[in-house]
């Protein structure tokens, strides 16, 4: 269904090994600077209007706990954001190794076309489960 392969980049292919680590490191520096400044974000408009969290609610608290290396609490506040940060960290490490080794083969995720519809359904279902968790945990 999903598998990782190593292959050379085709001409004009997006440089995933450079763009995403750069943006991730930039985002991490931005978040670190933001938390250092002590500035607060305004309350979520969706939360204010409906009383329910939006899909992004808890993300800032998750990031704040990640900066403080409290991984358990970070996961509870926003599992999706936590997983994205972990995957981005792993990708950044892989990219660093890729550039240091001057590798010609790049790691790519391949989705079997026969399973792409199932994967999309699973993705939407996981968003629903995620939101249900947020509704429970963030409104306790």
């Amino acid at each position, binding site marked *: 269904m999903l598998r990782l392969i190593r292959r050379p980049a*085709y001409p004009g*292919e*997006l440089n995933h090994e450079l763009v995403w680590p750069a*943006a991730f*490191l930039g985002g991490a*520096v931005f978040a670190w600077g933001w938390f250092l400044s002590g500035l607060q974000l305004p309350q979520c408009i*969706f939360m204010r209007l409906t009383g329910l969290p939006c899909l992004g609610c808890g993300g800032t608290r998750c990031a704040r706990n990640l900066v403080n290396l409290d991984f358990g609490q970070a996961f509870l506040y926003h599992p999706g954001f936590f997983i994205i940060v972990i995957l981005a960290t792993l990708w950044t490490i892989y990219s660093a190794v890729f550039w240091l080794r001057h590798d*010609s083969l790049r790691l790519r995720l391949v989705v079997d076309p026969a399973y792409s519809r199932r994967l999309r359904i699973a993705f939407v279902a996981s*968003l629903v489960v995620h939101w249900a968790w947020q509704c429970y945990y963030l409104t306790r």
Partner: protein
Amino acid sequence: MQIHVARNSAQLGIFAPEDIIAGLSSGRFLASDLAWRDGMPAWTPLGDWSEFRGVGVPPSPGAAIADEPAVSTIPWEQGKSFSSFFATVKLAIVNPASLSTGRFAFGDWLIFCYVALAISLPFQAVRLAFAPDPERSIAEFLQGFSSPAVQSVAQEMLKAPPAPMGVTIASTIGGLAFAPLLYAFFAVLHWVGQRVFRIQVSVERTTAATLLATGGLILLMAPFQLFWFNVGAQIIISSLFFIPALIIYFKCFGSATGVNPWVQFGISCFVWFVLCCCCCGLPGILLWGAAATR
């Protein structure tokens, strides 16, 4: 064994050899399409594969040209030197429309942005000499106003203890080192905005165009650091240059991405509005945007 096929910088998918033979016969695939399978060192045109030779139509001249990289007229993409750097900045200001021919590989423009920052370093050093603590200088300038509201802001700013010189220098250098990465991060957010409005520009082109426009602007704004000997002059000149700077930035950015500058300005406003109003809503918008533009 399955074969990966790509055409014009986009992957068409993964296919079985018999699908490729059928596709070549029907015209779905071209002999000039690039293909790769496990064990091969590089992507090769389907027409050069021994098992597909003689199948389907010969490569059309148009298709062969389509797979060749576009010829860029941007000096920085033709060769990296200080002269090509300044020629690119000049081109971006004088004739931004010519930027549309660029390849915009992220790595090239990351270097461009670092060069712009390196050139701005002497100006930063002058600023550090005149105003090692800009916040304090601004607060002292604001104290000259009679308005109680401005006075209270100035008092609040003066409360913070001045940072030691070592910390100021380290944070300036660190800021310059990470600045292009920060621009890349905001460029990715802008790309999300483009996706929401169904504008199909690749993330690499968006980030590279951001680095080009920002690099040019850094170079243009660098001399303004010399005005820090007088904070009032610095604030007035920066304010006067703000709108021309926006025009230059979005003309460059619009041309480089092949999108109307006003549209890019609107998307930028939208992204910043969302970022300021509900920072955490961005992942939700990304998911919605990605789903809507499938």
